[in-house]
């Protein structure tokens, strides 16, 4: 029981740090502002109680945080089920369908299982750090989620430095992974942690660099500003999303790959590669802490895909001109589902990548290309975003792509292994 | 021939002594197996020097220009240091000419004799080397013009006698005798040396004749007589006495005579040549040569009286001892001592000519007696004890004849033999000596005893029956031994002619005048008295001896008839009046004690002293060592190590640890800043 209380406390502390947050007060029940409903209710309640306004501010923040947590916890539960279902379908099997109709209650079953499992703490480990690690994994994801604009009306916390905040929070996960690995005392978690950290550090670079190209063009670090920059339509029906620009497409793809690696998923899920290092830095955890790790991972996934959507898929912008009536957050969560499905799809199909190929892919392929997108974006900006821009940018981007892919195909091919049977 | 030689005489005269010396040197390097060649070389060398000597004698006899007392050859500077130059040279005057001729003539015949006598000797060559060395040295003594050269030759002669006496060095008695001879003569030589130095100190010259500046010339003599030294003696008297002691040592006068009888250990020719004819005469020659120094203090001065008395005592003593001797050669030895006593008496009483005539005559007949004794010993297979001999006359007639001539000359048989006249001259000079009749009486009794013991010897050796098997069938000696005997016998007889009062040629010649024949000399009353006395003495001696030894007992071990009469005295005489024993007791024993004392002092005093010194040195050594070790080395090391320590502590600050450096910088900076704020702000 201690863990959820801790989460709430940390949320309150961050809120109470007095970040400037204007709470626009519009009609409560407008569909657009649905997600803001609880926050508004709390504000009204406190004002009714004539609490001092700092108390009011704190209350509203708490409500906002609460809604975000609630929404994404349920999403987490659903996602664990959906993921297993999709993987099963990909592998031509059904997936969990025993617990509840179509296996809907499977997450509940998992949750109960996690809760009832005994919480083992290894003697050689540092108990406090061992406890702190899962918490530190979950917190950045939640912080990140708090910054992403879900709808025109609703951005839990709208920071002028939203993107910077997101990445700052993102870096904490590496420290958390280290602590998890180191604190559990034994060698496997340590090795797993070191591998995870080196992977995350390597893939953070392309992530940030591809994001900077977006920042360069949209001229602002605040995420809502970026979404507004993607409003409008080219040629009447093509939404002005960055993904649909040559550099944007490349940056977007790199962002998604890096995001995938950042959250240690599928092709890059080396850290907890079951076959080699048992569960990587999570081997010594059991029970609810182990669940927290999973929660952290999935929330991280949500955060990364959310950011990807806001940066490249135009956030809550409707894909077509005529759809203004639909509440903006519906578009956001639709895109979110699509991206999540993409990740699940990737997980189901791609083989695991070896650590040196992974590192070499990051440093020799992603980073150079992402660095290239910056000048290309500049060119796009000043070439009038028209056909000329397309032509130039695509030309510039295709050359390294071809070179790299040709070389990589040769280089990446797994050299034939010589199996020596034990005499 | 004489005139032809006279101009070359100076260098020829040098040859006389040098040739035998050279021969001696060469034979010394010849290996023993070349003995024969060595003897021929020696004989040849002596023959030549004898020829030159005779020629020189001839020159002196027939004066070419005005009669010159002596021919002095320019002296050679032998040795010069600073402004002092020692000169040596030769002189030819009647004295040296006569002696030189006699010595070389006798030596030549003895050499010939010894080639036969020593034939069986293994070290033949070595013997002849010593002999020629001796004869060369003797000739040098005779012809020397410088007292220094004479002294050096004198020493060489002493050495030669030592070598020859000790020729059979494997016999301990021979070695001891040689050593005894050498040491006793050395005592005499020491006195001689002191005298020489004193003379030199006074006159600054050692040359006898140096055209006026010589030692024996008036200038030097005057200066010598003028100075009186210790005991009121004038320098010349004292020097003369020292020279007399030197002569006594060499000529075997009483206190220093003990070595002569023992010298018989040498081979017989040696005894003949050295201990009869020549070397022993050297002492007499010395006194004769330096007679002017003796005369310097008057006829009855201390040196001359001393000489006369010592001569008389020696003559009587030797004659008595000769009575008790049983060894054929020892009898002759003591007779030589007594005859030398006669010569000393003659010298002491002023009769230099008489002494020289007696010396030359004695040389001939004593050499003759010794050689015949040698022939007898040779014949009797080295038997020397007369008690075991007897009846050799029949077996060795030639030897008996020559021995008889010699015996009669020595005993002084009247008129025919030189011995009679020379002894008569001696007695004459003794009798006319103003200093008293003591020496005359001593000489007369000695003459009597001489006749006695010579007859004893003749009777015991040649008459009666042989008393031991070895002597039973003696064989006659070969001619090479007999010829020299006959020559010497002739000499002993012919010499009488030049010494008789009727024609005292020799005496006058010595003085530088020419003798004139005076038949009436015999008739002088004084001369008749003396001749009568001599006759009486000789006949008395012979008849007494004949009576005693007429019937020698057949047994060699029987006591001597005289022994029966004299009893203990006979034994006493036999031991040479136990001079040796007394010397042993009174001189050698105290010396030994003295040596012991000195040795004791050495051991007790010096050894500890040395130990003390050694300890001192060791201590000093140790002390310096330690100071060096402790003081210098350790000090230096300490200094080095402290330096190193200092360096190490200094280098410790450079520890290479960055934090240390940082701290230092921090402190420094803060101090500076404090200063800054304190001073400025």
């Amino acid at each position, binding site marked *: 029981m201690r863990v959820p209380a801790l989460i709430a406390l940390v949320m309150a502390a961050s809120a109470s740090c*007095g970040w400037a947050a204007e709470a626009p007060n519009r009609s409560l029940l407008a569909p657009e502002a649905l997600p803001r409903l609880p926050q508004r209710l709390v504000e009204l309640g406190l004002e009714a109680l004539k609490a001092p306004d700092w108390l009011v501010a704190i209350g509203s923040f708490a409500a906002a945080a609460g809604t975000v947590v609630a929404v994404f916890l349920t999403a987490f539960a659903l996602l664990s089920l959906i993921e297993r279902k999709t993987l099963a379908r990909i592998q031509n099997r059904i997936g969990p369908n025993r617990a509840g109709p179509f296996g809907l209650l499977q997450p509940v079953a998992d949750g109960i299982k996690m809760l009832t499992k005994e919480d083992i703490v290894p003697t050689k480990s540092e108990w406090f*750090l061992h406890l702190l690690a899962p918490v530190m994994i979950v917190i950045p994801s939640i912080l990140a989620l708090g910054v992403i604009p879900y709808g025109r009306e609703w951005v839990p916390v709208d*920071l002028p*430095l939203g993107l*910077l*905040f997101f990445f700052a929070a993102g870096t904490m996960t590496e420290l958390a992974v280290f*602590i998890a690995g180191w604190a559990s005392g034994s060698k496997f978690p340590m090795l797993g942690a*070191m591998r995870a950290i080196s992977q995350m550090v390597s893939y953070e670079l392309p992530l940030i660099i591809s994001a900077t190209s977006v920042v360069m063009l949209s001229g602002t670090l605040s995420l809502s500003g970026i979404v507004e920059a993607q409003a409008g339509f080219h040629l009447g029906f093509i939404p002005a999303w960055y993904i649909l620009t040559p550099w944007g497409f490349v940056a977007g793809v790199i962002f998604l790959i890096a995001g995938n690696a950042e959250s240690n998923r599928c092709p890059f899920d080396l850290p907890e590669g079951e076959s080699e290092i048992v569960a990587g830095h999570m081997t010594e955890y059991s029970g609810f802490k182990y669940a927290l790790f999973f929660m952290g991972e999935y929330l991280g996934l949500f955060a990364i895909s959310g950011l990807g959507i806001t940066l490249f898929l135009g956030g809550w912008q409707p894909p077509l001109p005529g759809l203004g009536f639909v509440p903006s957050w519906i578009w956001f969560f639709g895109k979110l589902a699509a991206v999540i499905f993409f990740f699940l799809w990737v997980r189901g199909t791609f083989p695991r990548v070896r650590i040196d190929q992974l590192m070499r892919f990051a440093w020799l392929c992603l980073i150079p290309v992402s660095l290239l997108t910056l000048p290309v974006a500049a060119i796009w900006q000043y070439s009038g975003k028209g056909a000329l821009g397309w032509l130039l940018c695509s030309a510039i981007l295709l050359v390294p792509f071809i070179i790299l892919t040709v070389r990589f195909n040769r280089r990446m091919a797994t050299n034939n292994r010589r199996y020596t049977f034990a005499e | 021939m004489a005139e032809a030689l006279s101009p070359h005489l100076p260098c020829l005269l040098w040859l006389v002594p040098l040739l035998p010396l050279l021969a001696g040197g060469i034979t010394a390097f010849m290996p023993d197996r070349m003995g024969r060649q060595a003897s021929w070389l020696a004989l040849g060398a002596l023959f030549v020097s004898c020829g030159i000597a005779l020629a020189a004698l001839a020159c002196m006899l027939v004066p070419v220009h005005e009669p010159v007392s002596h021919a002095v050859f320019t002296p050679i500077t032998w040795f010069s240091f600073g402004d002092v130059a020692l000169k040596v040279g030769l002189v030819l005057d009647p004295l040296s000419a006569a002696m030189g001729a006699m010595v070389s003539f006798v030596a030549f015949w003895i050499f010939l004799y010894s080639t036969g006598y020593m034939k069986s000797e293994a070290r033949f060559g070595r013997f002849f080397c010593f002999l020629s060395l001796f004869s060369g040295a003797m000739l040098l003594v005779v012809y020397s013009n410088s007292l220094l050269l004479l002294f050096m030759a004198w020493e060489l002669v002493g050495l030669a006698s030592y070598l020859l006496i000790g020729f059979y060095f494997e016999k301990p008695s021979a070695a001891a005798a040689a050593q005894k001879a050498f040491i006793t003569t050395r005592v005499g030589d020491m006195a001689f040396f002191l005298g020489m130095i004193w003379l030199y100190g006074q006159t600054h010259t050692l040359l006898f004749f140096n055209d006026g500046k010589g030692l024996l010339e008036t200038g030097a003599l005057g200066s010598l007589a003028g100075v009186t030294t210790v005991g009121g003696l004038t320098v010349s008297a004292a020097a003369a006495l020292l020279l007399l002691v030197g002569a006594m040592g060499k000529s075997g006068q009483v206190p220093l005579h003990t070595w002569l009888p023992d010298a018989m250990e040498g081979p017989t020719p040696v005894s003949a040549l050295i201990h009869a004819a020549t070397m022993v005469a050297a002492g007499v020659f010395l006194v004769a040569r330096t007679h002017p120094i003796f005369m310097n203090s008057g006829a009855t001065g201390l040196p001359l009286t001393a000489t006369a008395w010592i001569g008389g005592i020696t003559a009587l003593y030797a004659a008595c001892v000769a009575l008790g001797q049983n060894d054929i050669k020892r009898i002759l030895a003591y007779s030589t001592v007594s005859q030398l006593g006669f010569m000393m008496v003659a010298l002491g009483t002023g009769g230099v000519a008489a002494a020289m005539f007696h010396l030359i005559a004695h040389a001939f007949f004593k050499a003759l007696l010794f050689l015949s004794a040698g022939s007898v010993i040779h014949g009797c297979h080295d038997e020397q004890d007369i008690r075991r001999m007897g009846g050799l006359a029949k077996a060795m007639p030639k030897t008996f004849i020559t021995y008889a001539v010699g015996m009669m000359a020595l005993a002084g048989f009247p008129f025919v033999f030189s011995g009679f006249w020379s002894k008569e001259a001696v007695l004459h000079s003794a009798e006319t000596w103003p200093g008293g009749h003591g020496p005359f009486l001593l000489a007369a009794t000695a003459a009597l005893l001489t006749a006695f013991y010579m007859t004893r010897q003749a009777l015991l050796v040649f008459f009666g029956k042989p008393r031991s098997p070895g002597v039973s069938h003696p064989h006659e000696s070969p001619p090479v031994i007999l010829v020299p005997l006959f020559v010497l016998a002739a000499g002993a007889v012919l010499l009488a002619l030049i010494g008789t009062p009727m024609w005292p040629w020799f005496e006058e010649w010595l003085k530088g005048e020419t003798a004139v024949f005076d038949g009436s000399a015999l008739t002088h009353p004084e001369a008749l008295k003396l001749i009568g006395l001599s006759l009486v003495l000789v006949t008395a001696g012979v008849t007494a001896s004949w009576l005693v030894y007429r019937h020698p007992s057949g047994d060699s071990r029987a006591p001597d008839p005289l022994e029966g009469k004299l009893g203990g005295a006979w034994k006493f005489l036999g031991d040479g009046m136990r001079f040796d024993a007394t010397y042993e007791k009174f001189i050698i024993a105290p010396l030994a004690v003295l040596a012991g004392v000195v040795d004791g002092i050495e051991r007790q005093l010096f050894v500890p002293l040395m130990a003390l010194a050694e300890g001192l040195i060791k201590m000093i050594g140790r002390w310096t060592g330690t100071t060096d070790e402790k003081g210098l080395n350790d000090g230096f090391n300490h200094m080095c190590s402290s330096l190193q320590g200092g360096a190490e502590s200094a280098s410790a600050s450079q520890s290479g640890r960055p934090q240390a450096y940082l701290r230092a910088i921090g*402190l420094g900076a803060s101090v500076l800043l*404090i200063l800054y704020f304190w001073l400025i702000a």
Partner: protein
Amino acid sequence: MIPLLILSPLILLAALGAVWKARPVHAALLLALTLALVAVFYLTVGAEFVGLVQFMVYVGGVAILIVFALLITRPGDEAAEVARRPRSLALGLSCVAPVLGLLLYAFSKGLPVDVAGETNPPLPVKAVGMELFGNAVPAVLAVAVLLTAVLIGAALFARDPGKKPEPPIG
């Protein structure tokens, strides 16, 4: 003012821990905490951009780097560290005290007198951006060159030449 009063002791405590903790990894983690707290300080003071940059660079980068280095070199001699405590404390204080005194003295004298309250408005990111790429462009370029050089240099340094490392000294 109040958040500062709360925050500075926390920072000091964390820093003290980072400096004094015997176990190296704990020290490194406490360093990360101090850096995070300093970032929070920047945020509270109003310089959000600097705070977030600090957070990203230090907590995300340097702290991880330090911890990584600690993992590789695995220093284990806590006991020696503890044993050395008294001596190092004395030594350290003796050097540090004067510096501290000096700094405080300097600050006490150097304070600007007429400072009212919060004079400068909170940091507008755009102003920083304009300023950064306006007046300070040479500085930015220099830092850029420096960072690339460091990137390449560090990679070269840390590259394992493939040969076995030599035995330890001493």
